[in-house]
């Protein structure tokens, strides 16, 4: 902890702050602001009510107008503070607004109706989190179903991808066979073809195979990625062949060499690929949008999209769901990010 603090408050040294200290910290704070402000704004906005979201000018923190329930009135009444006229300083509940005047009552004396100029009153507001944005997701919208769909696709696709890619990388890095370079070049060559180009043919294949509107239609086409094969191959090249020879002398089958020797030794590269794969699958939008048309198959990203209607957008639900969608990927990244640096560093050179 003290080391973290020392790191965060590091300076160039000397009694006073050097101008480079000011410049560095200024630059870093700017960076932090640029990176974090949108996220903070998103999270705070997700706790605002629909009315609060529409307010202009917007407030930073979520506020809600206070209401009061009075005998004789069915609905809760909004409270206002009176800033002018004979009732100045009082807090009154509004019954209805008629043109430029409002009919109000004093909560202490609900029988007497008062007429107030609307310019003389300001709403009584208090910082309140609109948690119903979140609870609605589980009640009114089928959040858990979308969450499950997204999770299932991400986990299954990542596992299949790691398995197939590592097997391909093993073959391409450790076996000598005719056409090995050609295969590798083909794999790398597919990197040059943008996904949008193969979208239509891929769609036709998926439909022919009966995977349209099925989660597998999203999982299978993304199972093999040239990036993954290449990344793992480069890493496996650094594993000495003598270890494989030793395993062969130890009567290990080729499958066992792959499973017991190659996979554990490639763990850093596999961790990197796993993180990338999870992020790709979780944030994938275009392909699921094409394959999945029924709402019970929607992933979170598709569900988010469906909140954005042609005529109106449910911003409160949209923002709340966005926050929940961000959370898992942020967690994954937080726990696994140290592997990215080590993994990428060790795939670079021997």
């Amino acid at each position: 902890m003290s080391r973290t603090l020392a790191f965060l408050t590091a300076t160039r040294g000397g009694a006073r702050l050097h101008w480079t200290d000011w410049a560095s910290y200024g630059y870093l704070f700017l960076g932090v602001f640029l990176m974090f402000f949108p996220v903070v704004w998103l999270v705070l906005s997700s706790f605002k009510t629909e009315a609060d979201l529409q307010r202009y000018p917007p407030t930073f923190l979520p506020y809600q107008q206070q209401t009061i329930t009075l005998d004789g009135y069915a609905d809760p009444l909004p409270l206002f503070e009176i800033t002018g006229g004979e009732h100045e300083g009082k807090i009154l509940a509004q019954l209805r607004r008629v043109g430029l005047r409002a009919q109000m009552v004093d909560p202490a004396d609900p029988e007497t109706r008062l007429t107030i100029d609307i310019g003389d009153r300001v709403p009584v507001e208090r910082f309140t989190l609109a948690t119903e944005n979140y609870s609605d997701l589980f009640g009114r919208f089928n959040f858990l179903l979308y969450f499950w769909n997204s999770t299932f696709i991400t986990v299954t696709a990542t596992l299949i991808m790691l398995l197939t890619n590592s097997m391909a990388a093993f073959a391409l890095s450790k076996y000598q066979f005719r056409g090995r370079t050609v295969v590798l070049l083909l794999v790398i060559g597919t990197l040059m073809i943008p996904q949008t180009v193969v979208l239509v043919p891929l769609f036709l294949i998926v439909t022919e195979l009966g995977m349209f509107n099925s989660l597998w239609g999203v999982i299978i086409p993304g199972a093999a990625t040239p990036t993954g094969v290449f990344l793992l191959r480069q890493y496996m090249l650094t594993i000495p062949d003598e270890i494989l020879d030793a395993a062969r002398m130890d009567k290990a089958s080729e499958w066992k060499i792959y499973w017991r020797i190659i996979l554990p030794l490639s763990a850093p590269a596999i961790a990197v690929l796993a993180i990338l794969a999870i992020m790709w699958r979780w944030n994938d939008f275009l392909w699921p949008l094409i394959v999945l048309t029924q709402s019970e198959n929607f992933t979170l990203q598709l569900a988010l999209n469906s909140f954005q209607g042609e005529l109106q957008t449910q911003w409160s639900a949209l923002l709340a769901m966005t926050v929940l969608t961000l959370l898992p990927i942020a967690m994954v990244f937080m726990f696994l990010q140290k592997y990215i640096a080590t993994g990428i560093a060790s795939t670079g050179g021997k």
Partner: protein
Amino acid sequence: MAAIELREVRKAYGAAEVIKGIDLQIAHGEFCVFVGPSGCGKSTLLRMISGLEDISGGDIAIGGEVVNDIPAADRGLAMVFQSYALYPHMTVRQNLSFGLENINTPKGEIAAKVGEVARMLQIEQLLDRRPKDLSGGQRQRVAIGRAVVREPRVFLFDEPLSNLDAELRVDMRGEIAALHRRLGNTMIYVTHDQVEAMTMADKIAVLRLGKLEQFGRPLDLYNRPANLFVAGFIGSPKMNFLTGQVDPGDRTLLHLDTGEMLRLPAAGFGQVAGEKVTLGIRPNHLRVAEDGPVTVHVRSVEQLGGESYVYGATATGAPVTVHSPGQTRIAMDETIRVGGNESDIHLFDSESGLSLREG
């Protein structure tokens, strides 16, 4: 029984032939060393015997059975690699048991065997460590242990000591020799160090450029080298070579290129009159003598206390080393005369390099 027989074994990578037809018989229980300069094909030959490398021609038989098409795993061999090739992600115990697990040995038996081997190699206290936490010598022991634990018919060692420091190398040399005495298995050991070869081997195979130069007992190679290469390679310091021509009229008289003359033995060598020959004599057989036939200009002197080496060159620049017991008073830039016994000389044909020794 695990005698090994190589018949006309060849290996080619495309057009480049690296093993050019080798015939060799290693008897059961023999400790055979393949020795040669780097690039002579000794490691390739070992890998061919192990099955890790295909052979391009000929036959390899282990225990009388031709194993050309049998995969490495099924030949019943174990190999110790130059880089040790321990599995870095496994503990020493797992390294030792991996091979036994692969042949479905029961758990209790694995534990017993691993324990026994660990005791024998004194690595018991290391069993739960990983290879990266071991020193070079310890890693070497584990690598040997991994080979021993599977009780193979034949052990193959691929330059196992080349990564160790000099002192440790001497120790491990003794241990491997002791291991061989205890287990009695056939062992093939590859090295470029002729001292290792001389000290450990029952039989030495000297290889050069993919060919077998000579195969035999260490002292036979030392005393009766078949050609110039073996004569120069076996023995330290190197044998001295002096080139010359046999007198056209008298086959016992040799005219050295330096212009000096010396007598050759009348019997024992098949030299003919007028032949260009190379005379070889080991540094410890040379003596400094007033009446010695060869003049040597001394370039440097090494005094080790108990023994001394004098390095010099003849008039034609051929290097000459004289090894003498005790200390010497010869100094740099002196000119000395040296000679030796007729019985200690070796004679080779200068063109073919083959020994002219008869019988």
